[in-house]
Structure formats: structure tokens, C-alpha cells
């Protein structure tokens, strides 16, 4: 995925679209001791500066579907696996809810489903993309900030957009070496992030 932070307004339409698509329980119905979960969240970075000269941007964080996924390495039962096309998925049947993956993920992308007693996370809407449709967050986005596509195809729209982004291309927590499949276009006015 490619997420353009200049377009994102932090409106959270992606979060609710994801909940609808994946049937995720709202926090309000979550069992006691659980906080419910999302597959995607939107961080608010800022405000920096003093009123009225402020800067702020919004950072949607789905699962990064890392090529070098720490969650996979941490999972003791090999419940977490990577598909040929790059998707990192949790096999619910093999999950023992040991919660090692939660701590291993630098993006805090994994949650516990206390009802089912397993770890769960973003699947990049596997069931949709296997039918040549877009992930729900991408379709829903109210600012056209998200692009989904085949990074292995150099001529795909997403690949061209990432190349064109040039030095505006940004990888979240690049220093962790996870090699994510989610890229960002840096927010133009922010002073906060470093490559």
C-alpha cells in the first residue's frame, strides 16, 4: 500500500470500513478485560509549535505486512505465515494466544480477540483482493489517500507512484529493519519525521 499523508485528514472512515468488512466487534461489545480491537488505527502526529503556528498530520497504521516480519519470527507455533504475494497472515487454528507477536510488532498492529482467544490483525482484506477488489480501507478513504497494488510489478500504478514520490517517500520506523509493504508519502509541512 501507499498512503499519501498530504491527503489524509484523520477522518477514520478507514477504521469503520475495516470494522464493517471484517465484522470486528466494537469496543463497547467487547468482553470484560478486553478492549476490542481494530485492524487499522490513525495516529495523530502533533500538534507541533505554539498556537496559532501549528503543524499536525495523521498517520493511518494498518499491518505493514513486513517482508522481514518480527511477528512471524516471534510466533512459537508458526501460526503466522507469509504468502507468496507478500501478505502476512495469522492462522487462527494454530494460534495459542501466547501474545509474543504483540510485543514483537513495532507497529502495535496486532490485537487480542478475547472472545475467540486468539491474536488477530489486518489481512489486507485477503478475501477481497483475491477477487481483484481493493482492501476496504482503500476503497472507503474519503481523501483518496490510499493506493493498493502489486509492488512486484514495476509498471503497476503503485510502483510508479512510489518512484515518483522520490524523497517524499517515507517508511514508518524504517530503523527497525522490518521491510514493510506499506509506504507513505511524507507530509509536506511536518518537521517531525526523519527518514
Amino acid at each position, binding site marked *: 500500500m501507499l498512503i499519501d499523508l*498530504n*491527503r489524509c*485528514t*484523520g*477522518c*477514520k*472512515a478507514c*477504521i*469503520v*470500513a475495516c*470494522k*464493517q*468488512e471484517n*465484522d470486528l466487534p*466494537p*469496543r*463497547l*461489545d467487547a468482553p470484560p478485560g478486553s*478492549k*476490542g480491537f481494530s485492524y487499522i*488505527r490513525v495516529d495523530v502526529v502533533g*500538534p507541533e*509549535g*505554539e*498556537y*496559532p503556528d*501549528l*503543524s*499536525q*498530520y*495523521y498517520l493511518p497504521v494498518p499491518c505493514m505486512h513486513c517482508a522481514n516480519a518480527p511477528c512471524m519470527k516471534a510466533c512459537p507455533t508458526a501460526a503466522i505465515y507469509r504468502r507468496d504475494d507478500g501478505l502476512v497472515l495469522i492462522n487462527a487454528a494454530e494460534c495459542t494466544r501466547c501474545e509474543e507477536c504483540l510485543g514483537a510488532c513495532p507497529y502495535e498492529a496486532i490485537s487480542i480477540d478475547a472472545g475467540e482467544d486468539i491474536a488477530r490483525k489486518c489481512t489486507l482484506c485477503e*478475501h477481497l483482493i483475491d477477487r481483484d477488489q481493493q482492501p*476496504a480501507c482503500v*476503497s*472507503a*478513504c*474519503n*481523501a*483518496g*489517500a490510499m493506493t493498493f497494488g502489486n509492488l512486484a510489478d514495476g509498471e503497476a500504478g503503485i510502483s510508479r507512484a512510489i518512484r515518483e514520490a522520490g524523497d517524499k517517500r517515507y517508511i514508518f520506523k524504517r530503523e527497525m529493519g522490518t521491510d514493510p509493504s506499506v509506504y507513505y508519502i511524507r507530509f509536506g*509541512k511536518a518537521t517531525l519525521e526523519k527518514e
Partner: protein
Amino acid sequence: MEGEQFEVKLRPNDMAHNKGDEKVLRTTCFLCHGGCILLAHVKDGKLIKLEGDPEGPLNLGSICEKGSAAVQYVYSPYRLKYPLKRAGERGEGRWERISWEEALDTTAKKLMEIKDKYGGESIAYAWGTHRVVHSYPRFSFYNGVLNTPNGIGIGHICLSKTRMPVMNVTVGPVPGAAAIGILRDFDRANCIVAWGDTLIESRNDAMGGMGKRLANNLAKGCKLIVIDPVFTRIATKAHLRLPVRPGTDLALALSWLNVIINENLYDRDFVEKWTNAPFLVRSDKKKLLRESDLFTGGDPHKYIVWDKDRRVPRAWDSHSLAGLENVDPALTGSYGIVLADAREVECRPVWQVIKDIISEWDPVKAEIVTWVSADKIRESARMYAKHRPACIEWGVSMSQCSRSTATNQAILHLKAITGNLDVEGGNIFWHIPGYRMPAAPLPPEKEEKRITGGYAFSDPRRSPLPSAHQPAVWRAAATGDPYPIRALYGESSNPLVTHEKPDRFVLSALKKLDFILWTDITMTPSNEWADIILPLSTPFERDWVHDGFDKGIFAGQAVIEPVGESKSDFDVFRELCHRMGCPDLWPWKTERELCDWKLEPVGITFEDLIETCFYPAPEVWQKHEKGLLRPDGRPGYPTASGKLELYASKLEDAGLEPLPKFSYPPESYELTPQLAREFPFILITGSRELNFPYFHTQYHYVPWLREIQLFPPMLINPDSAGGLAIGDGDWVWIETRQGKARFKAQLTKRIHPKVISACHAWWYPELPAPEHGVFESNINLLVDPYGATDPATGTTELRGLLCKVYKAEGPPIGVDGHKGD
């Protein structure tokens, strides 16, 4: 706040989700006034998913959080499933189920009784935003069957009755949604001004999830100016941000006019040719000079200009729309004109009068009043005027203070003189020729009975929206002054939450009335006071068409059968019209028939329309040049003079200020310094930023939405909060002279240290009936609709009040973990 344990217990939803064989139907959403076209997935008659339609011209495939949560809304356990009659005293919260037959029979009988005994005017109707009702000729029922002029709502603090009069007196009663002046061409503008508007959180109200259209245009280099005391989501994208002091937008607008006029950045051709800028105003009476002033028997519909070449007065004839061919009229200067009584009176062109007004608003003076630097004022005014076409999105903020008319007028002047009215990329007038919006008229003698509160623009002869002045009607219902109200038809309205100062007259009125009918989708604190409640269906269960969104006509179709025994308002009105002896006023048998009837002159059927759910309005701009604004088809505007009236003769006729003049907020450091000692903060209420993700009082019971905003928020700067020992997440009281309410504090640098922002429309569906916590976090307890109001529209002061803030002992009982003793 993410990840905290919390104590909001909503009734659990039970929605079955299957992903097997499903049919996909196209429809338009009406959860707000957006106009997003969606694809509804339906399996076995059940709605299982909604997604955006990529072909939707407004949403371009996107869907907002409300649309994605709509499956929870449609199948919400909070929905009313069958008609109810109260069992016990009114307001006890005890109900018994009855049949539709009984409900309608009782309602018709009681309304007819009350109408016969006390007159139709003793029946008031309260209307909310509806899901959907714009489609319906419901005024046929209110006007033609009930014969009541007393329709109430929040029009006087909303676009509808604040902008409509300003548009009406300036450009005249233009047809279609343009009458409210809400429309703008985000796609093709070179500069967009978000003036007192959050754009993102308020994407409803004819915006159609416009995020994508806005983002696309910004990516192409469109300039964005954001005028807002708070640094909002859209402010993060702005090229220029003007942190205006609440309640002083009028000064800012006058200062923009100062820069634009003095630097000659306006469209001189348009101003000279199409506006009444050259008309002379007499300085003795401060009125427009008319031919009837110049000699006995002169025509009052002929206005006078000064012919610069021949140095004589000349007349513009409003009947023939002529008289100034080959005349170069003066826009500035002052001229001595001899009147019929032989006195010479100094007269100035309207444009000169405007220049005189704005001469006091150079940016340096404006900086002191508005808190926006003079440099920024100049830079932003020039940016707007020079990057044509440009559009101003005027948010509801300016329409929620006692200078509503003047502020909106000044902003409309900016749009007009810069040549941005009804041009591609500007503030456009969409219109669908032929589209029918019927309504039976009110019997003329009932006009006299309208409870207007004395405001000129509660009178439909001046404002196209036929309703009375809401605060005055509640007072009548509670006190009998000017005459008693006996019954209420509550139509998807929630006045105990949305109407001002509801603990003064609204509640006592609801206790007193002889009969109350309510139609609604869920129980609310307001309809808990009804005698009969009728369950309404949602937009996804109805067939409808609407021309009030951007770009054209939209259609929605019923993708599922109504849930439970709920019905559309269409059915309710039809049944009542037929039971109350007026079947001719509601001849259509189904909603589809009504839709076909409305569309017929356009040349399409409902069946045709729902293929795409959209019929585009013709793109014909500068309609004033083409004779498309006036009913007689001649070029010009449908105003008294035929010109765009910068100087509003209709305001002059009503004895009101015809041009915008500044005054401070009635509660302010300048005007009420004593009050400011006890109430040191400036309060803004009702910002859509804090109403997010709801739509006014709706959807607080939808779990996926409630978890985004669990409790009623208020914003306070951390420096100010520190001084009051208030921490992030603390519950606090906000108090004005009028009253107080409590909110959960969010400390943020995004707001000025002297400003407080508090949400509106908050109630607690999960708290016990009948109150549902209606007066716990209700910002309307803090305002005064009987105090300082706009002289034309009766608009209440909702923004720019003085308040104080202090820590609360905790939340209301039953909220956020507070169990009480």
C-alpha cells in the same frame, strides 16, 4: 484515551453477516445531507454491507464512518419497531404497543378536535433534519390540512433561515438549492476559503463526502485558506490560517472588503453593471433615492444614479430594466440632489457608502478586534481575490450569532464583487429546471397568526422557508402568550436537546400540551413526552429523490423492506391527509409515484433515475446574464430593482440595516467587562469538529460510531487548563450566566488559550428513560434565545459567549464508570 477501559453499555446489536450470494443495489445515502452514492449489499432481504459507488459524483467511491456503520444503525435495538401509546403519566417513560390503525385514528381525531376548537394555529410542528423528508410535500399537510403557520425548528441558527434571507435580499429568490447559497465548486476552484467551517467533520450538508474532490484539487495546487479559532483537520492542509476570534468574523469580512476594494481587486464590470452599487443613497433619511423623491408623481421603483459625463441624476427603471444605456454612473463621490420639496440633499452611491463603512476596517484596526495579524488579513484577502475562480464555503458558525445577517451579507458581498458568483469554480447556483417541489398554501388569514417573535424573516413573505420563530412558539406553548399552543406534531425533532434553553419553556410546554404526536426512528429524551409515537423507517428503506445536494438530482431506493412495522413519513402524511378529510392534498399512493410526479417535468422516471441514482443539473453559469434567474426570463436578478442588491432594499423596507455594520459580541471583553471578570473564556458551541462522528443528536447509540467519541468533548488549551488544575480527560463544568453542563476535557494546543469549544447535541441513549441524561451535557442550557438576537432572523448567540470552566466532581451518574452512592 485509546485503550482505556470504559463504562458505556449500549444494547447489543445482533446482525448476521453472510458473504454468500448477495445482490448489490445502488442507492444514495441520507444519513446526513451528503449525497454519497453507495452500493448496498443485500442477502436474503437483509442489508449486510455498504460501500461507496466509484461513479458517485460527489463521493467518488468513498464512504464515511456513518455509512460503514449503517448496518448497525438499520438493525439497531434502539430502533422503534411499532407504534406506541403512553401508559401512565406523560413523561413517565411507560409505553404500550398499539396498531397503526389505532395510532392514526387517535391522532387524526385529536388533531381535528383541537383544530376545530382552537384553530389550526394552536397546533405547532417541530421538524428536524429528517431521514428523508425533503422529498415530501409535507407542507401540504401542515398548511392545507392543519392550517397552521407555526412550524418550528432550528432554522434561525442554521443555514436555512439565516442564509436564505441574506440570499433573498441580495440576489433575490433564486430557484433550487441555490436559494440557501450553500453550494460551491470545489473541483474547479483555484482558491477555496473554509470560513468557520471544518469541511472534513462537517462533510455532510450538501458536501457529499467531498474529501476526495477537495484532496484532488488541493493536489493540483488549489489554494486553501482556513478561517477558524481552532486548528482543525482541514487547517492542517491550509496555505493560510486565520485564527479569528470567535464572534468577530464580521470585522474580518469588512477588512477583506477594505483590502479588495481599496486595492482594486474586484470585478468592476460586474459591480457597475449588475449590482446596485451606483444607486444613490440620501444622507438625510439614509434610504435609497427614488424618482418619487425627486418630483411628485415620480416612480418609487425608479432608482437614481449620477451620470458622470453629463453631471445629472439619471433613473434606472426597475420595470423596464433600462434607463442607463450610454450612462457611465458614478460609484464614488457625493452629490447634491434637489428633492421634490426643493431641498438639496447630499447623496452618495451605494458603493461610496460601502467604502465609507469599510474605511474603518483597515487590517491594522481589524487585527485588534479579530486577533488575526494585519499582514495575514492582507495576504489572505489578496489570495482570495487574485486566484479566480474562488469559492468561499461559509460554515454555520457565522449563522449562530446575533450578527448573523450582517456577517453573512458581508461574505456574500465578497463573493459577488470578486465576480465569483455563479461561475465555474466559484459559488455556483445549481438549478434543475422543472423539478417539482409542491406544497399546498396556507390559508391567507392564518399568516396573521404566525408567531414570528417580531422578526421580519420569520415571515415567509420575506423568507422562503415557511415557519415560525421557535423560541417564541415554545414561550407561547408554556405561557399562553400571544395565544396558547395546544398540540405538537414532533416530526423527527429532538427539541429538548437541540432547541435553546430547553429547561425554560420547552420542558414545561411538553408537560402542558393537550396532545403530542411524535414520529421518529428511536426513542429520544424529547419523544419520551409524547402521547403517541410512530416508528419511522431509515433512508435505506425508502424511495426518494432530492435536489438539495450538489450537482443535480439524487435518488435513493428502498434496498430492504422497512424494519419491524416502521413506515416512511410519506405513509404517515398520506394516512393523516386522508383521515382528516383532505385526500386531494396527498394523491400519490406510493413514494415512487410521488418521485415520478416530481421528476415528470424533467423528463425522467424514478425507475430510470435509480440506475445511476444521479441526474446532473445543466452547467449553465452566469445565469443573470442569460435571463435564467428571473421568472420573467429577462437578464438580471429577481430583486426589486433587478440588480444584485449590495444595499438590500428589502432590509431597508423592513426597517433594518441595509448594509453590514460591525458590532462586538454582546457578551465580550469590550462590551461587558464586569461579566468577563467572572466568565473569562470565550465559548464556541456546536462546532462540527466535536459533534463528529455523529450527525447532531443522531447515532450516539451506534456502537462503531460511539467508540470513536464515547463522551461529550470540550477543548481547552493546556496552559489555561493548568491554571484551573484540569487534566486531560477530567470532567469539567462549563458555565455561563444562563446555566451549566458538564463535558470531558481534551487539552490541546489547537485552541486559543482564551477560547473554549464544547460539543452540542449530546444525550445519553444508554441512561435510563425518560431523561436519557438530557440535561447533563446539554450545551443549550447555557444559551439565551430571548436575549441578544439577530434583528432580522432572531438568531441566538451560540458562538462567542462568555463562560467559566471548573473541574467537576465527576461525570453524570452511570457514565464513564461513575456509579454514584
